[in-house]
């Protein structure tokens, strides 16, 4: 996992581009818990999201999990490649992103975990 990303307790990763765009995906921990992925439901481009709102669904052979945004803002792009190949989420951080969100309040990023804090968090689970 790269060191320059931000992480959430709901196991999303965020990469900040151009200072005001967050690229969102789900972490290897979440990918492992879900198992084989069969479907990803993407949000519509242009949708306005509030902080904490769920905006995508990742479905696996075990369960369907909602993906939450820790930041408020507008969806400016979605990764359409996931529709045909949901397993792409696991391939790499570059290819497995879900959506790009234009930040409404950059201060939403405060309080998100860095790599070290997230590693500590996941090792405290189960």
């Amino acid at each position: 996992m790269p060191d320059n990303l931000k992480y959430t307790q709901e196991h999303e990763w965020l990469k900040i581009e151009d200072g005001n765009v967050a690229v969102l995906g789900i972490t290897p921990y979440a990918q492992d818990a879900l198992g084989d992925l069969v479907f990803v439901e993407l949000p519509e481009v242009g949708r306005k999201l509030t902080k904490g709102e769920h905006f995508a669904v990742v479905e696996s052979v075990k369960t369907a999990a909602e993906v939450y945004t820790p930041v408020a803002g507008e969806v400016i792009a979605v990764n359409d490649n996931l529709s045909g190949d949901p397993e792409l989420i696991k391939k790499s951080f570059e290819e497995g992103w879900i959506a790009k969100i234009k930040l409404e309040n950059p201060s939403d990023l405060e309080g998100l975990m860095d790599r070290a804090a997230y590693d500590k968090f996941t090792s405290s689970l189960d």
Partner: protein
Amino acid sequence: MVAEKKIALVQEQNSMNIMDQTRGLNYEENLLWEKGHGDHPGVDLPTPKGMKSRTGLPVRDKVGLPQLSEPQVLRHFVRLSTKNYSIDHGFFPLGSCTMKHNPRLNEKIARLPGFGGIHPMQPESTVQGALRAMYELQEILGELTNLRGVCLTPAAGAHGELAGLMTIRRAHEMNGQGHRKIVLVPDSAHGTNPATAAMCGYALRVIPTKESGRVTVEAFKAALGDGKDVAGMMVTNPNTCGLFERDIIECADLLHKAGGYFYCDGANFNALVGKIRPGDFGVDVMHINLHKTFSTPHGGGGPGSGPICVNEKLRPYLPMPLVVKKPDDTYHLEDDGERTTTMGRLKGFQGQFGMHIRALTYILSHGADGLKQVSEDAVLNANYILSQLKEDFYVPFDGPCMHECLLTDKLQKDSGITTLDIAKTLIEHGMHPMTIFFPLVVSGAMLIEPTETESKETLDHFVTVMKSVASDVKAGDVEKFHGYPLSAPRRRLDETKAAREPVLRWKE
């Protein structure tokens, strides 16, 4: 090495044309459409040679069905039926499902001509006995839950949930509380609970239970807030971790003070029946799965039946129809329009009448003492399994449990053997797997519900198989598990492909 060879053989066989696979008594069944392509006659008869139609029209058009004889069709379905594993085949420890034996006495009584041969549109005066049987069932379910208003019509558990929540919504609307839009649901809930709330137009607020596996007063208070916008809560008790919700009375009191109603999911009533009454721990409305607790057929062999029971606060809003007893001791199916406060009708006619009779038979043949023993034995059996396996598998929440026990694959996972492999191993040993990967509050869940109808020998067989899995994994003998089941009609399936590219209809 032997295991590897076996797996290779399986892969080879799976790639063979399935039509070539019938061996001995192990039939590979093709679809009737695939069988019926011969040039021999079946439902379409050949036109006799030299026959002339007097009208000039064809004697008979082709029916367009597979060309098969009656014994061919009969054998096809009988063979298929032998591949359908059921509670009548063997152990079926599916958690949160209560797959118990369906006593054949139920079937005998439901087939009596006075029950089996009547029609829902017959005049009431000619079906007084049937209506009385429904009325008696209403009364008994009211007594067992201490929720005295009972509607028998919902056709399944999820339908009962919907009826229950719509009853709550109707009550709020009739009492000027229609602005309440939040329903509280623990994260261990059955998936149908949040789905039902959403179907009724409610927003969800989740009560986290990961720490202790139970709803605590603190977590409940935090979710409730001031409660002004809360319509109600949906809680299963005992919950899906197999644990009794100890703080439920206090939570129910807080909810009632805030103006909300308590809906209890009745899926796990088998742990309580005859022992305690949900109305006594604050429940306002509850559905009952006749196909679980009261032994009517469950699953594809149903139909299910999910009556709802409510207390006096909610009785006026129950769905229609209800059976009422009139002052002259005759019985009447109350129809639409006879009660203006009702939330309306959710089902044609009077519900799954045949299931009402089976459930009533089961209840009367057990009696009050027998039902009490049902829940005691169900809890005993689950705790027997828990006590036998607690050293071999990880137990996320300490026992004793109620009617089902929760284990996980935490001790096995590092060797590459997961809950899925353990479930497939049970198939190899002739048993239905337990519920897997549910509840979602723990990782790699295995939820085991033996029910009271299993013998100690059956439980011991299950325990032996589970222990052998644990000891093989410990000894590093793990390769074979990835290939199981080897002796089932189908081996390891590609579940991902099945979900992504389902083939749901036959194509020529």
